[in-house]
């Protein structure tokens, strides 16, 4: 198993930490993982993206030019990365802020209204987890327990009470993701 994933969106959307949770989940699952952000000032107020690889084997390059899975959270990122999904790969996007949806036919395109859902749940912090839940529904590359275990490891103890809420969000994400 080896999944090469790009997550891209605005700086404020928690793109990097979503990637981090995914990577940590992989770690908990005993997998090899790499997490490689696009870094630097051009990210300022603009787009942010991170490449996460989860694999059973040692990972060579953490930087990729094409991906198995793209998680796209804004229009500029869609424009940048749609073409870089490998044929047969997967693209998941949040409808909020996407004016022109993806058009490729040779990949699996999924839509998840995580932003709306998070607003509805009155918990914008759940946004991340909803998207992640959607991803894991379609590609169960790590067990949900591993995600929660990872959260436990990374969250400070005083935030551990938030874990059940995160679990809910993951499950909700799995429910609302839909093929375009």
């Amino acid at each position: 198993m080896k999944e090469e994933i790009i997550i891209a969106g605005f700086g404020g959307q928690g793109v990097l930490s979503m990637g981090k949770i995914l990577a940590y989940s992989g770690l908990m699952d005993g997998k090899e993982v790499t997490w490689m952000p696009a870094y630097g000032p051009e990210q300022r107020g603009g787009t942010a993206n991170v490449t996460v690889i989860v694999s059973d084997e040692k990972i060579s390059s953490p930087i990729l030019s094409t991906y198995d899975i793209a998680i796209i959270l804004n229009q500029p990122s869609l424009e940048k990365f749609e073409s870089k999904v490998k044929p047969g790969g997967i693209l998941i996007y949040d409808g909020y802020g996407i004016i022109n949806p993806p058009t490729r036919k040779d990949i699996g395109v999924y839509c998840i209204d995580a932003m709306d859902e998070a607003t509805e749940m009155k918990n914008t912090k759940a946004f991340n987890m909803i998207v992640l839940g959607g991803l894991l529904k379609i590609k169960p590359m790590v067990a949900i327990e591993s995600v929660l275990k990872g959260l436990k490891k990374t969250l400070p103890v005083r935030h551990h009470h938030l874990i059940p809420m995160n679990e809910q969000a993951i499950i909700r994400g799995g429910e609302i993701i839909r093929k375009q």
Partner: protein
Amino acid sequence: MEKEVLLMKGNEAIALAAIRYGVDGYFGYPITPQSEILETLTLEKPWETTGMVVLQAESEVASINMVYGGAGTGKKVMTSSSSPGMSLMQEGVSYIAGAELPCLLVNVMRGGPGLGTIQPSQADYFQSVKGGGHGDYRVITLAPNSVQEMADFVKLGFDLAFKYRNPALILSDGVIGQMMEKIVLPEQVKRRTDEEVVKQCPWAATGHTKDRKPNWITSLELSPEEMEKNNIRFQEKYKEIEKNEVLYEEIQCEDADYLIVAFGSMARIGSKAIEIAREQGIKVGLLRPITLWPFPKDIISEYADKVKGMLSLEINAGQMVEDVRLTVNGRIPVEHFGRLGGIVPDPDKVVEALKAKIIQ
């Protein structure tokens, strides 16, 4: 926490490893893509735990001279920067080498020349191994290719630096510095007491006690005869290091017809490339120099008698390839492949280059 597998950036790993190794002082100036080293250190507050000094200097010139000052007192001191900042340090590095002081430098390379780009690069190879500063000196240069090695080479670097009283350099790049991957941190070691430092470093400027002559930390010697003696001593030391401290990794080299030589992040691309090539029936191995200086000449020279050609894979316009060629000395073709300006080549493209430049 022991032996716990963690996930962190290469830069963070260096910072945490430095604390655990009992480093006495870090002096640095922010620059992308390595600012997390200083940031992690300030967040960890080691001055409250191990007593390590952490200081944001006013510039890279100040940083390297703080390192010079600290190293001259026998303490374990280090700095880190990225390419433009390293260039500013070259005078200082030359002084440190000339005064024969141990210290650890970290360069998380970005694309140049000039302000360039903040993307990964390996274009400071020449600067690192041939001496970007003035005079005949050498810096022990370690090239980690994983977050784990970023942490491990802190100890390795300091150990070599103190063994030979010579600066050591971790030559990394934006890929290794910024990526997160698995790592097991070394255990916390106690920092040496002042008394231990005095004892271990009788050459250091720690305060002149009656039992010895005053110590002078200096690179100055106006008499050319004496200066020549110093230089001869340096050169002999460098030969010792070349004899004793070469490190490298061989990946699928036993049966190889061709060899890729690559260091740091490029060695990871290279290892992917040899997988692809072997799937295509091309028997290629990867030789990864871990020490860039001393350069693994003997092993490369051995392979020069076994393989049909070598490809030096670097994110630059061809630098290490010169050292490979100097080693091979014309026995087999040696070519370079790389991308420039911060672009990391695809493993496929490496295989293509191998075919086009070496195999054809």
